[in-house]
Structure formats: C-alpha cells, structure tokens
C-alpha cells in the first residue's frame, strides 16, 4: 500500500520509468506471440512429417520449386519392401494459378492443393483424423470433384459447405471445412489425387505437352504404327508411355507396427538410391528443430534486447530515485528502519513498476497482435497466437525484471551508512 502510494506521489518519475518497461514488454509480447504461432505451426508440421517417411524423386530442388516425378512402378516396388505398410503418391500445387504480371508478398502459407488417395491405405502415424468444423474429409466414397478445405481458405475465399467453386477453371464441391489447426492444413485444399494430377499437368507446359502427345499417339492403331519408320515408331511408343499415374511429385510411406521407421528409411535409401531421396522421420524432425531454433533465437533475441532496455530504464530510475531519496532513507533509518526493510521496500517498488509496465505493455502488445490478426485473417494469414498463459507469464516476468532491476539500487540504499544519510538532513 505504502509502495503504491509512494509511486503515485512521484507520478512524473514513475511514469517515465514505466514507459521504458512498457516498450520492452510490448515488443516482447508482440514478438513472443509471433514466435508462439510459428512454433505451433512448426510443431504441427513436425508432428505430421515425423509420422511418415517422405519420399521425393531425385532431382527435386525445393528452392526453385522444380521437381522430377515418381513413376508408379517405382512406388509399387517401394510398397513391396519388407516393413512398408502403404505408399501414397501425391501432388501439390498452389490453389491459384500464379499471375505472371503481378508481384505480391504475403506472410503465412499460400493456399495449396494437396492430393489425397483414400484407396492407398496410407495413414500418417501422428495425424490419423482431422477435426472438422463442418462436413467431412474426402474419402474413398467421395466424388472425384469433392474437396475439403482449411479454415483460412474458407474465410479468404468465402467458400462455405456445399458451395460449388471454381479452381483453375474446373468445378469442385466443398464437402468439408476443417477446424482451425493453427498449422499448415488451415491453408490446404484436400482434393482427390486424380483431379489434383489433372490440374498439375495442366499447369505444367511440359507435362501438358506430353499428355497431349500421348493422347494423339493413343489414336494411332497398331497397324498404322507398323507402317511407320523405326524412328517414328519409337517416338510414338515413347509418347504412348506417358501415364497420369506416373505424375507424383512426392510420396509418403507408412510402416507396419513394430518396424523401426529410421531403419526402414535407410533400406529405402539404399535400395532406391538412383530414383528417390528419402527423409526419415528423425532426419525431418532434426531439420525442423534446427530451423525452429534459429528462428526462435532471432525473434526472442530481438525481443529480449528491447526488454533489456526496459530493465535498464528501471535500474537507472531506481538509482536516481535512491540518490534523490537519501534524505528520506536517512530519516527512516534514524526512526529505526532496518537495512533489510529499506532494501525490501525499494526492491518491491521496482517490482511494482515492472508489473504496472508489464500490464500496460502486455495489454498494448496483445491488442496489437489481435488487431493485426484480424486484418491478416481476411488475407488468410494470422501470424500471432494469443494464449492467456503467455500473457500471465509475461506479467510475472515483468515483475521479476523489476525486482532484478531494483536489487542493486536497493542494496545500495540499504548499505547507506546512517550517519552519512543523516548528514544529508
């Protein structure tokens, strides 16, 4: 009570100090909320990716986005390896066709079409069933044009359950909307594999050309083929060999119960080293952890820097305050105040300054994050996660910061020799 009164009666000085800690806590709250969101997304992604063995064709360059394909025969061979439960080829591409004339940047993940092959028997170990907001996930009984969409896609495109929607000039039916996951699937459109392959081929000029050549070659009868020159015949045969089933840009492998997934990954790597790249669950997990650690270091490092500034703001104020209040300390000691009570009083005062600054900073930071999220949601990319436990932690932390900042000045006040303090009187 007395401490609050002391703070209130030195309003100007207290306000200036509090502003310092408000700025630090504000920065910490905003950046911490961003880190929480990114960590959750990463954790969700890690959980998913470590529930399967991920396969990509040799020659895949993630940076440039170019990819070779995984032929269906290769996938069939992989399925025969001991320990493999199921293999699912998949295709993914952006929901919207890129506009070559437009340049834009956005935070968050772009909306992505991800294929599903409900007949493959594949099941991710860590992500078996997704919570639905409405409708259902597409399954083997669904029509090929049925899609299930993430919540961010639904909000961004204003697509509702039951809507017939246009994707890359084809019509699809929304049969399900996922619950918010705060991770990648919020921006996904789950589509039947055959339809996703169609859209993928259509979007890739080379594959589109191969398909058209294959269709043309398919119209040539065997008798007509026999009349052609060997070179022409070879070309036609090659054109005919293109199959839509061979269009898989990646594949996921599930393993049987009791099988060591990392050992199985090594087996696949060795047996198919010419055709595929294999990322074991462990390797994927480590990759994600490394990226996550670096990201967190950058985000929290910047936030802590701002907080340290706030901390020194309190230290500076407390040191100045105590040297100005030497007379007051002298009076109190003359009246019988112990060193401990003086130290406790000033440390607690610093702690309270920390709490008040923390409350205001956390409130401002939370409001900023909330408003930015509201704005981003319309673009499909919320980048802050607002968790009550985080805010409570921030306020407790600000109290601790205040206490720590007050310790040295308070100790100096307590150690002040009574006679020296009294001489100031």
């Amino acid at each position, binding site marked *: 009570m007395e401490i609050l*009164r*002391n703070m209130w009666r030195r309003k100007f000085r207290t306000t200036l100090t509090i502003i310092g800690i408000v700025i630090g806590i504000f920065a910490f709250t905003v950046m911490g909320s961003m880190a929480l969101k990114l960590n959750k997304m990463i954790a969700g992604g890690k959980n998913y990716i470590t529930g399967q063995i991920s396969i990509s064709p040799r020659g895949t360059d993630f940076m440039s986005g170019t990819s070779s394909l995984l032929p269906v025969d290769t996938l069939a061979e992989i399925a025969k390896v001991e320990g493999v439960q199921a293999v699912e080829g998949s295709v993914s591409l952006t929901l919207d066709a890129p506009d070559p004339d437009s340049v834009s940047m956005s935070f968050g993940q772009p909306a992505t079409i991800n294929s599903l092959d409900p007949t493959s028997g594949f099941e991710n170990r860590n992500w078996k069933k997704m919570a639905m907001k409405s409708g259902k996930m597409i399954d083997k009984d669904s029509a090929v044009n049925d899609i299930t969409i993430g919540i961010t896609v639904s909000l961004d495109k204003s697509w509702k359950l039951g809507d017939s929607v246009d994707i890359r000039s084809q019509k699809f039916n929304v049969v399900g909307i996922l619950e918010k996951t705060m991770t990648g699937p919020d921006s996904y459109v789950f589509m039947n594999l055959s339809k996703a392959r169609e859209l993928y081929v259509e979007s890739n000029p080379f594959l589109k050309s191969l398909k058209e050549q294959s269709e043309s070659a398919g119209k040539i009868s065997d008798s007509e083929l026999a009349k052609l020159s060997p070179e022409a015949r070879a070309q036609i045969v090659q054109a005919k060999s293109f199959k839509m089933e061979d269009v898989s840009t990646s594949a996921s492998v599930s393993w049987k119960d009791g099988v060591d997934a990392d050992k199985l990954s090594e087996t696949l790597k060795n047996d198919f080293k010419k055709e595929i790249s294999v990322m074991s669950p462990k390797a994927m997990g480590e990759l994600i952890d490394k990226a996550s650690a670096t990201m967190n270091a950058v985000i929290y490092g910047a936030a802590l820097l701002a907080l340290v500034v706030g901390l020194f703001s309190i230290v500076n104020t407390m040191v100045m305050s105590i040297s100005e209040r030497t*007379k007051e300390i002298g*009076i109190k*000691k003359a009246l019988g105040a112990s*060193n401990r009570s003086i130290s406790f009083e000033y440390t607690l005062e610093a702690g309270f300054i920390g709490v008040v600054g923390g409350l205001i900073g956390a409130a401002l930071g939370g409001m900023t994050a909330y408003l930015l999220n509201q704005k981003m949601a319309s673009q499909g990319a919320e980048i802050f996660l607002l968790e009550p436990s985080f805010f409570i932690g921030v306020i407790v932390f600000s109290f601790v910061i205040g206490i720590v900042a007050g310790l040295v000045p308070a100790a100096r006040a307590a150690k002040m*020799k009574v*006679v020296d303090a009294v001489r100031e*009187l």
Partner: protein
Amino acid sequence: MEKIVVKAIGLTKSYKMSKTNVISALRGVDIEVREGDFTAIVGPSGCGKSTLMHILGLLDRPDGGTLEIDGEDFTKLKDDKAHKVRAKKIGFIFQGFNLIPTLTALENVVLATKYGGVKHALRKAKAVKMLEMVGLKDRMNHKPNELSGGQQQRVAIARALINDPTIILADEPTGELDTKTSMEVMDMLKKFNKENNQTFLIVTHNHEVAESCKKIIKLRDGKNDN
C-alpha cells in the same frame, strides 16, 4: 535520585579526511543524563556537538570510550542491530524538521510506529492522539509543504515521542524558527518533560534556549568544558 538513562565515558571519534588529514571530533567526552533531565549541549561550531548526538543516537559508533543507554552497553552495537534500539529507545528532532515530503503529517507519525513495533491496527489511532497532544489534529491530513515551520516541528515532535522513547535527542530544534515559534516549541518540549517525565537532550546555539534548560553541558574542541 532518578535513574541514569544515558551514560558515556571517554568518547572519542575521529574522521579521516585524507591519508594525512585526520580530524578528531571527540577527544574523550563524558556525559550522564538522568531520567526526566532537560539538558542543553552548547559549544562553538566544530566542538563536536553533532558528532556526540550521532553517537548517543546510535547513528554512528565511537572509536573509543563506552556508551550505555538504559543500563545496556551499546558501545560496539552494529548498525544492523542498532536500528531496533533507535526505534524504541531514541526519539530524534532535527533542525530542518525532516518530515518525509510525500507523506501527510499523520502518515509521518504513523511511520515511526511501524518501526517501533506498534501493531498495525493501533498505529493510526496512536498517531492521531499524539497529533492531538501537539495541537495538530485538524492539520493531520496535510503534507509538510502545507504546514508552517512551527507546525512541521510539532509533527516532528509527535513523531519523536510516539514510541515513548528513553531519550529524545533534539539537534537545534528551533534553528529554523522565529523567536515566537521557537518559544512555543520549547514550551511544548518542557510540557512533555514535566507532565510525562520525558528526558530531553538538546543541542543548541541559542542562549535563551540553553538558559531555559535545567542543565547545560558545555563542549569545546571535542572535550567537556564544564
């Protein structure tokens, strides 16, 4: 014969200003104060009056000699224990009043009760009664800058007396007051001395103040001059 409340024998105190410059503030001072005494300490500037008051008030420790308060030897009492004795046995009245400026008159007096170990529930009532005794009940919610010099000194008196200390040390209590107010303050101190048998030791340059005391102790160059 009244009991001895303060007894000091051969008090010495020096201050080292630099490696070669040492100032002897007290060079063997003897002092004896009995219960109910109203004693003045006089002497020229630099004779050691303030140093003596600091030592008697346990604000500083002597280099040599002995000091007893209420029969207990406090010569070597360390600072971390001295505060308890100061809180309960010693009351201070300073020349510049030295009230805490952000606290009201009442809060300044309550502060002394906090250190004096008075129970929380009783502090305010005790402080109000004390302020009433010094005639300031109607001004108790005012801060020091809203009070006159005389009123501030009366608050300081209330603060010094509230824990019923063994001795009240007053360092130039009328130093910043006009003649009329000085006499009012001295009359108040005498009133408490007479009615409650409280013991006062008053440092003063003022001859009239000194003459109005029952006893006078003279110091010169750090020694007794009686």
